[in-house]
Structure formats: structure tokens, C-alpha cells
């Protein structure tokens, strides 16, 4: 399961609401203990998609390299990636799946009319053909 701590969660929601009506993205860092991943730090990153960002996001690999280095520097792990779905549910779309990576958790925040609505976490399989829903715990928004 994945648990998101208050400070990190607040930053994720703020980033998603501020970026609305475009999609936001970022990295989640923290310790992993057995099956429990705890997101202690959220790193908002720039959506680098060159086209319509209302419907797409793209992370620069060098930004993820930075996130990975930040995690190591602070004795944490890169747990996953978050992004927002403006005015639609927090599902894992075909585009999300095909452009994901099976190594990480993918938290999707649904932002409806500019406000946080709900979130889900997803774990893509190796072939990127399907994603399983991961148990997600986050503070009350």
C-alpha cells in the first residue's frame, strides 16, 4: 500500500489545483518498509508536454534524475509519480498506461472545477497492458 503524509499531500493537491485546468506532475519520495510505501516528500515538477497540457503531461528524464538524486541524498526512495486529471476521474488511461513504467506507483488526482475531488494509485504491469489499483491512504483534503 501507499500512504501519503500530510505535508507531501498538501503540496500535491496545491500543485494540481494551481496547474488546473492543465495536468500537473511530480515525484513522490519516502521510505519503503516491506509492502508499505510512505510518501514523505512531494516534488512538484514541470509538465514538459509540448502540446495541449489540459490532456497530457510529460516528465523530463533529467527532472526524474534530479528526483532520484534528492531521494538518495536524503536516505529515501523514489516511490512514484503523481499527476492530475482535470475535470475527470482518477482512472489510469490508455495514454497513462502506454507511457508509464512498471517500476513505480502512479497516483492520479482528480481535480473537478479546480478543486481536489478524489485520488487513486496504480501499478502498471511489465508489458504496460494493464494497471492494478493500489491501496492508497491520504489525509482528508
Amino acid at each position, binding site marked *: 500500500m501507499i500512504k501519503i503524509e500530510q505535508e507531501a499531500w498538501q503540496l500535491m493537491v496545491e500543485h494540481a489545483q494551481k496547474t488546473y485546468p492543465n*495536468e500537473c506532475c511530480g515525484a513522490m519520495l519516502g521510505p*519503503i518498509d516491506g509492502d508499505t510505501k510512505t510518501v514523505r516528500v512531494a516534488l512538484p515538477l514541470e509538465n514538459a*508536454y509540448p502540446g495541449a497540457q489540459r*490532456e*497530457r*503531461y*510529460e*516528465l523530463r*528524464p*533529467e527532472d*526524474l*534524475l534530479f528526483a*532520484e538524486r534528492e*531521494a*538518495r541524498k536524503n536516505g529515501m*526512495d*523514489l*516511490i512514484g*509519480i503523481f*499527476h492530475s*486529471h*482535470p475535470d*475527470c476521474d482518477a482512472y489510469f*488511461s490508455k*495514454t*497513462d*498506461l502506454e*507511457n*508509464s*513504467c*512498471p*517500476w*513505480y506507483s*502512479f497516483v492520479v488526482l482528480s481535480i473537478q472545477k479546480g478543486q481536489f475531488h478524489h485520488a487513486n494509485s496504480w501499478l502498471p504491469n*511489465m508489458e504496460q497492458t494493464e494497471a492494478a489499483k493500489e491501496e492508497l491512504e491520504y489525509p482528508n483534503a
Partner: protein
Amino acid sequence: MPKILIPTPLRQFAEKKDSVEVDGSTVGEVLAALTAAYPDMKKNLFNDEGKLRSFVNVYVNDEDIRFLEKDKTAVAAADTISIVPSIAGGK
């Protein structure tokens, strides 16, 4: 020997190490040595045709090998190699 930083989800295939030093003078040689030492890591990095999976980017220090000489990019003993995924998506 060049050092490869192992992303957290792949450490389970590398005796839980967060970095590994392996022999090799190019990125291709170093990755081959890594997957020879830890065969379970191979399917995470390479597809069935033996090519790097589409979402896998490799950096030598701060440089993306796609903009250098890809798997023929030279590596020196003091170099650090990072494995970073490409990630995108949309609703």
C-alpha cells in the same frame, strides 16, 4: 570500475544493493555485465529483442546517452551511470 546506481524497484534483483560496480568500457558493456551478474534484472531493462525497453533512459553522470553514442558511449572508471525512466501520460 564504473558505478551503476540501481533504482529502488530493481534493487530486489541486485541483492538489495543501491549501487553496483561492474567492468566495462562502454554503456553497452557495463549493462551487459550488470545483467550477467543479476539476470533477473534483464527483463526490466531489455525487451525480448535485447534492446533497452522504450521507457529506459541511461545517463552517464549528467549526460543522456541518447545524445551521445547510445550504448557505445564510453565510460571511465570514475563515471556514475543512472537508469531513469521516461514517463508521460494524460486523461
